[in-house]
C-alpha cells in the first residue's frame, strides 16, 4: 500500500515524530533485552563481592541451570501451567462458552459475558486476593461449599489451584476471540449439517473447525505466551510451598531478588525471551499468511 505524504510532513519531520517513541522503546525494551545477555554471562549478584566486580562466567549460568533441579522443576511446572490452564483450559472453556452462548437468551448472554469479562479486567492483585479468600484453609468459601474443612488448597494442591485460578482469570480472551471467529462459519453449512442429522461432535469437527483453524492457532499461541510470562502465581503462592508452584517467572524473581543471583536469573530470563521470540515469530508468520 503506497502511502502518500498527505500531511506534508516530509521525511525529516516524520522522523522527529517517531523518534521520541523509539528512544523510549530503545531504553526500556531493546537495551534491557540485550543487556540481559551480558548480565547472564556474568556472576553478578545483588550483594557481596560480585556486586561490585562481577566476573564473566561465559555459558556457566546456562550449564548451571541445566543441572539445577530447581530450574528443571520450574520448567516442568511452567509447562503444566501453560498446558493445563491455557492450551486446554482457557481454550476449551472459551470456545464452549462462545459456542453455547450463540443461541442463548439475551440476558443470559450478557450476564455470562459480563462476569467472564469482569474476571479479566479486575486488577491482578485484587483477583489473586479473591482467590486466596476462596481457597483459604479456615474461612475459605470452597471448603464451606464442598464441606472439606481444614483443606489448605494453596498448600496442598498449589499447581491445581493456580491452574483453576488462571482458567477463571483468562478465559475471557478466548471467549471473545471465538465469539467473533464463529461469525466466519456460514450459517447455511450449519443448517445443512443439522438437516443431514450430523452429530454435535462431527458438526464441530467437520463444519466449524475448518473455518476457525487459524483462530484456534492464534488464540493458542497468544494465551500460551501470556500464561508462560504470567507473574500472578507469585501473588497466590510466591512459588511455594517448597518450590511446588514456582513457575519460571516466579523462579526468575526468587533467584534475582530473593537470592540475589542476578547473573543466573538473567540467563534464565534470556531463555524465557527466546521462548517468547519463537512463539511470537510463529504468530506473526500466521498473521502475515492470513493477510
Amino acid at each position: 500500500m503506497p502511502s502518500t505524504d498527505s500531511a506534508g510532513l516530509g521525511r525529516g519531520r516524520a522522523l522527529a515524530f517517531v523518534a521520541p517513541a523509539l528512544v523510549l522503546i530503545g531504553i526500556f525494551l531493546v537495551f534491557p533485552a540485550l543487556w540481559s545477555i551480558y548480565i547472564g554471562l556474568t556472576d553478578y549478584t545483588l550483594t557481596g563481592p560480585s556486586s561490585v566486580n562481577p566476573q564473566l562466567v561465559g555459558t556457566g549460568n546456562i550449564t548451571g541451570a541445566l543441572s539445577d533441579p530447581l530450574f528443571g522443576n520450574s520448567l516442568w511446572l511452567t509447562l503444566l501451567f501453560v498446558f493445563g490452564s491455557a492450551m486446554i483450559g482457557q481454550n476449551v472453556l472459551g470456545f464452549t462458552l462462545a459456542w453455547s452462548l450463540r443461541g442463548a437468551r439475551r440476558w443470559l448472554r450478557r450476564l455470562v459475558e459480563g462476569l467472564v469479562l469482569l474476571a479479566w479486567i479486575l486488577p491482578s492483585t485484587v483477583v489473586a486476593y479473591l482467590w486466596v479468600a476462596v481457597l483459604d484453609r479456615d474461612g475459605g468459601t470452597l471448603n464451606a461449599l464442598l464441606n472439606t474443612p481444614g483443606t489448605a488448597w494453596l498448600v496442598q494442591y498449589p499447581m491445581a489451584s493456580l491452574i483453576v485460578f488462571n482458567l477463571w482469570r483468562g478465559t475471557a480472551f478466548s471467549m471473545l476471540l471465538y465469539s467473533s471467529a464463529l461469525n466466519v462459519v456460514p450459517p447455511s453449512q450449519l443448517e445443512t449439517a443439522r438437516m443431514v442429522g450430523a452429530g454435535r461432535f462431527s458438526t464441530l469437527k467437520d463444519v466449524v473447525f475448518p473455518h476457525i483453524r487459524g483462530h484456534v492457532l492464534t488464540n493458542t499461541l497468544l494465551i500460551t505466551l501470556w500464561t508462560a510470562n504470567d507473574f500472578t502465581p507469585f501473588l497466590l503462592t510466591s512459588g511455594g510451598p517448597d518450590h511446588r508452584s514456582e513457575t519460571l517467572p516466579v523462579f526468575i524473581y526468587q533467584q534475582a531478588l530473593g537470592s540475589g543471583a542476578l547473573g543466573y536469573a538473567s540467563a534464565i530470563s534470556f531463555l524465557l525471551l527466546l521462548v517468547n521470540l519463537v512463539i511470537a515469530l510463529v504468530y506473526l508468520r500466521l498473521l502475515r499468511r492470513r493477510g
Partner: protein
Amino acid sequence: MTTSLVLRRIGYSAFFAVVLAFFAVPMLWLASAPFDSRPGLGLRWPDWTFDNVTATFDHPYALTSLVNSLVLCGLAMIVTTVLAAGAAYALSRVRIPGRDVLLYVLLLLSSVVTGTAAMVPIFVMMYQLGLINSQYGTALVIAGGMLPAAIFILKDFVDAVPRSYEESARVFGASPWQILLHVVLPIARPGIATIVVWAFVQAWGNFLLPFLLLRDITSQPAAVLMRTLYDEGGSANLTVIPVFSLLYSIPVVALYLFVSKRYGFRFHGGIKS
C-alpha cells in the same frame, strides 16, 4: 426424542449454572466483605456497616497509594498516548525507509520483551541509575513497555482517516501540526480514547514493575500496597483489604463500562487488556 430434548435442556441449564457460579462466587466477596462488621475470608450476608470504609480512609498509606497509582498511571498514559500518536501518525503517512521492518520489529518486541522476561536487566538498570523509588522513572519504564502495542493499535485508526481531508487542509495553508491537531486527531478520537483507556488500565493493574522498582511504602501504588497489606505481620488486614480492593477496582470497571458503552468492545490485533 422429547426425553433427549428435555435432557439437553437440563444439561444446558446445568452448564450455565455451574459457569455462573464459578465466575460469580469469588467476586461476591468483593461486594459483601467491605460492608461487613466482621469481615472474614468466607462469604456471608453482611450486617451492614461503614466502619471499614472509615478505617480504610484512616489507614496511613491506603489513600496515598491510590493517589500514587493515579500519578504513576496518569504519567505512563500521557507519555504513551502522546508519543504513540506522533509515531503512529508519521508511520501511517510518510514513507520512511525501513518502515515496514520497523513495524514488524515493534510488533515482535511488544510480545517478546515482557516485564517478566526483562525484570532483571530493568531492575539492574534502574538500580544503577539510582532510580529505585522514583515514580517518574517507573512511569517511563511502564510507558516504554506499552509503546509498541500502542503505536500498532493507533496506526490502524490513523490509517482509516481519509487522506483527502488533510490535503484540503493543506490547500488552505494549514501546517502539519495544525493538521494533526485539528484534522487527524478529532477523526481518530475513538482510537485515542481506546489508547488512553487501554494504557491506563494496563498501568493500573501492573504489579511486577512497581513492585520491583518502588520499594518504599510511601511511593507504592495500590497494586503493591495490596500485597503489603496482605503480608503485614503474616496475617491479612481484613478491615482494610476489602474496602481497598473495591476502591482500587472501581476505576478500571468504570472505564471498561464507559468504553464498551461508547465504542463497543472491540478487538485490536492480539492485544491483551
